[in-house]
């Protein structure tokens, strides 16, 4: 190949790369609301969530070549985000892991407790649900221990599949399922505890 032909090929390649990069950045930015929604519940404060999301996008834009086009970009971004969150020393501030069943109850426990407080005989489920305030739900979720909350937030808030959650957190899919199951029970127990008796 002559020198001019090869430099023409180089500039075509560079132009293509620039277009790919722009497209990548646009697609990633379109997902930022969804990424933020998950991030906000993985950490304790709005400031931490802002920092974490910003760092995630900085890193994602630096390492955009590692993303395989056509794969789940939202999961790829969340993988970066959860790794950064762990790097931030989250593990040190984790709530002590309770292995007892003190913070769990059966799946019907919350409903039974709420229903008993609604004055009507045989109330409809919406009336029962209205016993829970938005703040009480936010607090109850924040009190779920990290390992369970991560899975709960990814699957139930972020609407990721078990397989995506497993990949994001780098844990087996069976662990995702068992943590999700327990995490939901802990959340419901916390919600029930937050309701005045």
């Amino acid at each position: 190949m002559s020198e001019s032909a090869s430099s023409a090929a180089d500039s075509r390649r560079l132009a293509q790369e620039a277009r790919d990069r722009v497209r990548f950045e646009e697609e990633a930015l379109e997902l930022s609301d969804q990424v933020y929604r998950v991030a906000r519940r993985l950490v304790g404060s709005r400031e931490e969530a802002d920092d974490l999301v910003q760092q995630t996008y900085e890193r994602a834009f630096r390492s955009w070549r590692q993303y395989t086009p056509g794969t789940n970009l939202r999961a790829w971004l969340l993988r970066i985000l959860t790794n950064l969150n762990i790097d931030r020393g989250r593990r040190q501030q984790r709530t002590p892991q309770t292995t007892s069943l003190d913070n769990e109850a059966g799946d019907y426990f919350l409903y039974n407790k709420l229903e008993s407080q609604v004055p009507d005989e045989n109330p409809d489920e919406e009336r029962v649900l209205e016993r829970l305030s938005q703040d009480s739900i936010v607090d109850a979720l924040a009190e779920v221990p990290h390992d369970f909350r991560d899975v709960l937030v990814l699957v139930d808030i972020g609407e990721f599949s078990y397989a995506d959650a497993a990949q994001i957190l780098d844990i087996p899919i069976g662990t995702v399922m068992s943590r999700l199951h327990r995490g939901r029970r802990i959340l419901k127990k916390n919600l029930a505890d937050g309701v005045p008796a």
Partner: protein
Amino acid sequence: MIDWCDKCEELMQPYLDGTLSDAEVAEAQHHLDLCRWCAKRYHFEERLRHYVRVAVSEPMSPELKAKLAALRTPLDA
């Protein structure tokens, strides 16, 4: 003797997640058709998941959105 309401309580999460076997789904469904008590609790759980998702959803600030947009590579780079 099996307590069907206890069994149904155990099956609730995987049922709603769609991860039960066909035989287990049929078992749960059969009980739910007969037992209004369990059916109400299943319906509540379904609504609760949605309710929680909406309740904890907090939008990002316009400031952060602007910061993220500013991270983009300039077009002439």
